[in-house]
């Protein structure tokens, strides 16, 4: 028995701490526990095979509680409902390299038909994904690819070239055809951002961009305050700056918020990749004229359809195979099992209210 209120308190406090820590662990949403017997497709592709009903399609994003991931998996949920399958969403609370492994192992045990995963690390998840494939589970990656030899197909939101070119084009437009521009990126070692910036630099060497000068690539580490400071640093270091191009949603929002509340408003343009909900305020107050992004809901949607097509035997992941992805139309698998979603959508004052993500 508890003798004194003090013991009681320390016990409750310990219990509280434990409960709180447990609450911070990974969460499982919409879990379904009945393990069914998923019949598997044969190795050869049969383009006329009907999509099976009741497919168990599990989504494993980089982390839960991330607004962007939520939109992606939300699109997947819609697709799974259209496919009359069973939707499941699991994921860690942190995007560290190894955090997804235990979730993959659990999904294997639950005998899912398809695992749609955004790999936090291309290699760390590989052994588990290969175990899943050995158990005849189809593995589709989206958002961020795993190594080629441990997944069946990759949904690429846009090609690196497409994004780099789109960034360069918007920079030219927003800078008014000439002058100094700067890039505000995520972390200095962010793979996606770095490859887009590389393409953008290549693009800037073309004659039509001759009057545009990229003066600096700054890194805001995808942190609001740091991106704020970096935007300030850019404007102080380069008084003649015409445009800031931010290929990251945190960076573009921070740069826009800073410029909209500073004396640089109207003098320096902001463009890049951003989420319409985050940017609406700054598009409406004219700080930002135009920015772009693929529709994240479409990524999840396409991934679910690709997974279902594969689990039903319509496709195997070989280049040149075609499948239908509901409202998005027909897709063809490219080299290395890549399926490209399409060109990014551009958002302006006129169309931004049509989007909610």
């Amino acid at each position: 028995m508890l003798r004194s209120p003090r013991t009681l308190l320390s016990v409750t406090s310990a219990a509280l701490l434990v409960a709180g820590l447990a609450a911070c662990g990974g969460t499982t949403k919409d879990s379904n526990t009945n393990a069914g017997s998923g019949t598997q497709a044969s190795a050869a592709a049969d383009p006329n095979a009907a999509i099976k009903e009741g497919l168990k399609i599990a989504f494993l994003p980089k982390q839960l509680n991330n607004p962007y991931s939520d939109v992606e998996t939300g699109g997947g949920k819609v697709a799974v409902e259209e496919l009359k399958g069973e939707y499941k969403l699991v994921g860690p609370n942190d995007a560290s390299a190894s955090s997804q492994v235990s979730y993959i192992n659990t999904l294997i045990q639950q005998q899912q038909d398809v695992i749609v995963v955004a790999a936090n690390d291309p290699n760390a998840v590989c052994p588990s994904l290969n175990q899943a494939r050995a158990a005849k589970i189809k593995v589709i990656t989206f958002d961020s690819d795993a190594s080629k030899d441990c997944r069946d197909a990759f949904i690429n939101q846009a090609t690196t070239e497409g994004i780099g070119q789109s960034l360069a084009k918007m920079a030219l437009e927003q800078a008014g055809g000439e002058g100094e521009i700067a890039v505000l990126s995520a972390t200095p070692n962010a793979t996606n951002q770095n490859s887009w910036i590389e393409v953008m630099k290549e693009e800037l060497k073309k004659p039509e961009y001759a009057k545009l000068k990229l003066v600096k690539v700054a890194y805001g580490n995808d942190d609001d305050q740091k991106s704020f400071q970096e935007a300030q640093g850019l404007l102080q270091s380069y008084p003649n700056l015409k445009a800031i191009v931010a290929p990251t949603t945190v960076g573009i929002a921070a740069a826009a918020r800073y410029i909209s509340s500073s004396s640089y408003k109207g003098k320096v343009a902001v463009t890049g990749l951003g989420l319409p909900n985050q940017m609406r305020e700054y598009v409406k107050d004219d700080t930002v004229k135009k920015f772009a992004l693929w529709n994240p809901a479409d990524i999840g949607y396409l991934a679910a359809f690709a997974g279902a097509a594969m689990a039903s035997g319509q496709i195997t992941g070989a280049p040149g195979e075609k499948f239908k992805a509901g409202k998005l139309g027909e897709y063809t698998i490219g080299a290395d099992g890549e399926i490209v979603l399409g060109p990014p959508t551009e958002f302006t004052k006129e169309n931004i209210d049509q989007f909610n993500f």
Partner: protein
Amino acid sequence: MTVTSDRSAPTDAPLGAPAAKRFGGLLKTRELGIVLALALLVAYTAIDNPRFLSGQSIRDNLLNTAILAVMATGQAVVVITRNIDLSVGSVLGISAFAVATLMSNQDLPMVVGLLAGLAIGAVAGLVNGVLVRYGKVPALVVTLGTLYIYRGITYSWAGGSQVNADELPRHFLTFANDSILGIPWLVLIALVVVAAGSVMMRNYRVGRELYAMGSSPAAAELAGIKVARNLLGAFVLSGALAGLAGVLYAARFGTVDAAAGTGLELNVVAAVVVGGVAVFGGSGSVWGAALGALLLTVIGSALAVLDINQFWQQAIVGALIILAICADRLVAVRIARSLRKRDAHV
């Protein structure tokens, strides 16, 4: 950096723990050191790029410091009592999200948001204080636990949703940039908090009691100081100020999700330590901690302006923390030595 030089007037220097009181001159060098470092940094950066001293730049730096300084004030008080509050980043997060949600649903005046933030933070701080005092668990462990608990609550409440700038009322967003007599509200709030904290710790009975508790908890208890009440007060203050900082964060950044303020607690502790508050309690000052916050913020902006590699920035902050702790140790040794000398004379 006009504000800095105003506040660095020598008469303003605080006195440390009772034992060190006679040697306030020595301790003064701690804050003086920060002011010198700050002056050097600003001068060097300004020579490299004169725009670093433009009105917009000074304003930006002060605005960026404001949130950190508010939190550092609360943290300094807690650290002076030989405790620590690691949950402040999570408290900021929960307060920022709660207030942003509250404000986005209806058109409430700003003061309601500020009070709500303070109240949420105070409750969170009270929980910390009660667990530390009555649970007899070290503050490091308790606040590490509540760091996760408060963040977990925010996550489970917010999920992946976020409050965007376009959902927040205009007056809430402009609050971060509006000025009164040329000083932005955010900076004014930070100045008031820091000044009030400094005066409380230096001139009021309760402040001196907090120093005494940090110098020797056992002796403080025996001397009849109301240790429990003071300790709860310190944690409630730290929590409430983190809550207030959450409101300022929401107003400043306009976009709030469940991850707001993640990792900020380490910046706050760094500001306090760099600002000369000894981690073992009993010495240091609130305004020193605020100076520490200013220094860290200015370093951040200066490195951006000076075009120094990103990777170096964290290393520089780390080096500063170690330097500050070494300086602490040095001061302590010198005090001990001069105390011994004085005894020899008697």
